[in-house]
């Protein structure tokens, strides 16, 4: 990746991620006697995010979406690359600087019941961030919490309730209220709606969009639901085995996917109208174990269009003529040789 040119602070992206990598040391199967190995959960991920915009990250389970989120938040330390938030590198987790930064970046979780303390009334939990960061006078906390409850569409009656007395959607609203009471500029949403009912999903999505407009929030939206991503994201990045394989405008990317993996993902979106249905591309095999990442393009064992070059040469994430970024030799027309004989 090229270094970003110096830009005036106003135009500076909220979040800049460059060549982000995180490796874990694991043991292969065999328990205590298994050979140690390195698992590259995230490998060379780069993106920018501006205020008031949403970047969606999609991909199947285990592709490094959540690790990316944790790296962006600074909960995990990267083993390579860097994360800059509002022009400053994210400090090491647990330090005072890191804790202070929580005021600016917050997170919404997949499982809202797990993220709430079941012994404390939800109103107390919504105002807890104020207590943690010592913001304002104690007397104002309650009214501030009530304001936020109102902003997420819950009345004052919810203040004294316990998490187990609320529905899934209401709990997710509480988590949102708690995250937003600090007035952050970045909200990382890790599959915020996948644990909710479809009817409640729509409510929470609309709420997220309202809150984004109201507080000028930047969203990093992690999901495996492409329809939701298309609905709320300004940009979407598709991840496969720890790398971004395609990135661009969701309408472009999800209508005419360039990367074979994105094509397979998009073909899996159910479409009601029979006339508009596309042929379903079913990928061969399972995603490879990230410990044994294939040489060359990591998607080649499952790729229907793989060529000889894909087996040895890692494709770079480069722009197509229409502006989106794709990491695929075939899509760039660089594959050269004819498609590999079917395995």
């Amino acid at each position, binding site marked *: 990746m090229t270094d970003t040119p110096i830009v005036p602070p106003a135009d500076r992206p909220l979040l800049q991620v460059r060549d982000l990598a995180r490796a874990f040391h694991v043991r292969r199967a065999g328990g205590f006697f298994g050979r140690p190995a390195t698992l590259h959960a995230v490998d060379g991920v780069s993106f920018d995010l501006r205020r008031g915009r949403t970047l969606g990250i999609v991909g199947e389970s285990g592709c490094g979406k959540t690790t990316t989120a944790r790296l962006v*938040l600074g*909960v995990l330390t990267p083993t390579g690359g860097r994360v800059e938030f509002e022009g400053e590198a994210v400090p090491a987790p647990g330090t005072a600087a*890191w*804790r*202070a*930064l*929580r*005021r600016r970046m*917050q*997170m919404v*979780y997949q*499982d809202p019941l*797990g*993220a*709430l*303390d*079941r*012994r*404390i009334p939800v109103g107390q939990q919504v105002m*807890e*961030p104020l207590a*943690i*960061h010592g913001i304002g006078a104690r007397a104002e906390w309650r009214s501030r919490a009530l304001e936020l409850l109102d902003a997420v569409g819950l009345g004052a009656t919810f203040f004294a309730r*316990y998490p*187990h007395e609320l529905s899934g959607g209401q709990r997710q609203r509480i*988590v949102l209220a*708690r995250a937003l009471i*600090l007035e952050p500029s970045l909200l990382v949403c890790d599959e915020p709606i996948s644990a909710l009912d479809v009817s409640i999903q729509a409510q929470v999505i609309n709420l997220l969009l309202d809150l984004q407009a109201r507080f000028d929030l930047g969203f990093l939206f992690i999901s495996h639901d492409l329809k939701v991503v298309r609905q709320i994201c300004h940009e979407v990045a598709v991840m496969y085995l720890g790398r971004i394989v395609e990135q661009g405008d969701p309408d472009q990317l999800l209508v005419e996917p360039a990367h074979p993996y994105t094509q397979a993902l998009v073909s899996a979106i159910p479409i009601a109208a029979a006339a508009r249905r596309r042929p379903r591309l079913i990928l061969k095999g399972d995603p490879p174990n990230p410990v044994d990442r294939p040489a060359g393009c990591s998607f080649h064992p499952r790729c229907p269009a793989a060529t000889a070059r894909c087996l040895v040469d890692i494709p770079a994430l480069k722009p197509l003529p229409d502006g989106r970024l794709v990491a695929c030799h075939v899509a760039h027309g660089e594959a050269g040789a004819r498609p590999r004989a079917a395995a």
Partner: protein
Amino acid sequence: MAITTGSGPSAGEDATTRERNLPPGEIVEKRAPRGRTARFFEAWPPSVLLALGWILAMLFIAAFVEILAAYSYTAMDLRARLTPPVFWGGTDVRHLLGTDELGRDVLSRLLYSIRMSLLIAFFGTLIAATLGTFLGILAAHFRGWVEDVVLMAIDFQASMPFLIIALAVLAFFGNSLILFICLMGFHGWERYARISRGLAISANEQGYAGAVRQLGAPAWRIYGRHILPNIASTLIVSMTLAFPETILLESGLSFLGLGVQPPLTSLGNMVGYGREYITRAPWIMLAPSVIIILTTLSISIVGDWLRDRLDPTLK
């Protein structure tokens, strides 16, 4: 009695789950004929009330033993040695529970023993719980080599028979009441350490503690405000289970002559010195034995009940 009432809470739970599954109208119909007494006993089962009453009585005795006891625990009356209790064919109303081999009043000694045994068990359990929870949370917070050291200490403690440790310590350092209480506090700490370490790690890895950390909370807040209150119910229940054990351990060590030393007296000490007269004057050891059994049973019952009460999701 203990058996029939002991099944009370679970039967009550079944009834509530059954009611929950009924349509709303029927619940009202079922609730209506139940009187205030029935509802009271559902919240406070009779076995729990009896156990609580017994514990309160023991605490009362421990607090006011100087007023309650007719004699000092050292007062001897050699002319009235081995007098049987009044309901055992005894005639001396001055010694309701009889006297021991030195003519000391068993009832008075029993009251002083209750105080001593409760004191040792209470502080012993408290020290063990504090030490264990602290080490467990320390291990969960720092992980790495701190955790390895704590885990090794836990394994060491769990694999050594405590009686041997106690004998060694008492043999080397002599015996004093403070040392003895500290020794009791060293018993069973590894259980609290294991519990608190496991629960704190799981809370940290995912869920509420991780979420609060992500809000920027300092460690004292995460552990003090969130993790400790959440794991407290589990710890309190293990405390109530350990409390009787500490009483029994104290009794055992005193029975072996290594615990509370004469002229001080404790329940185990009384049982130990009474064993020589078990055929001629069994009341000397029967009275403290009954107290040990009833007190440990009461605390276990209350602990079990407390666990359910402390969980807001079960209310």
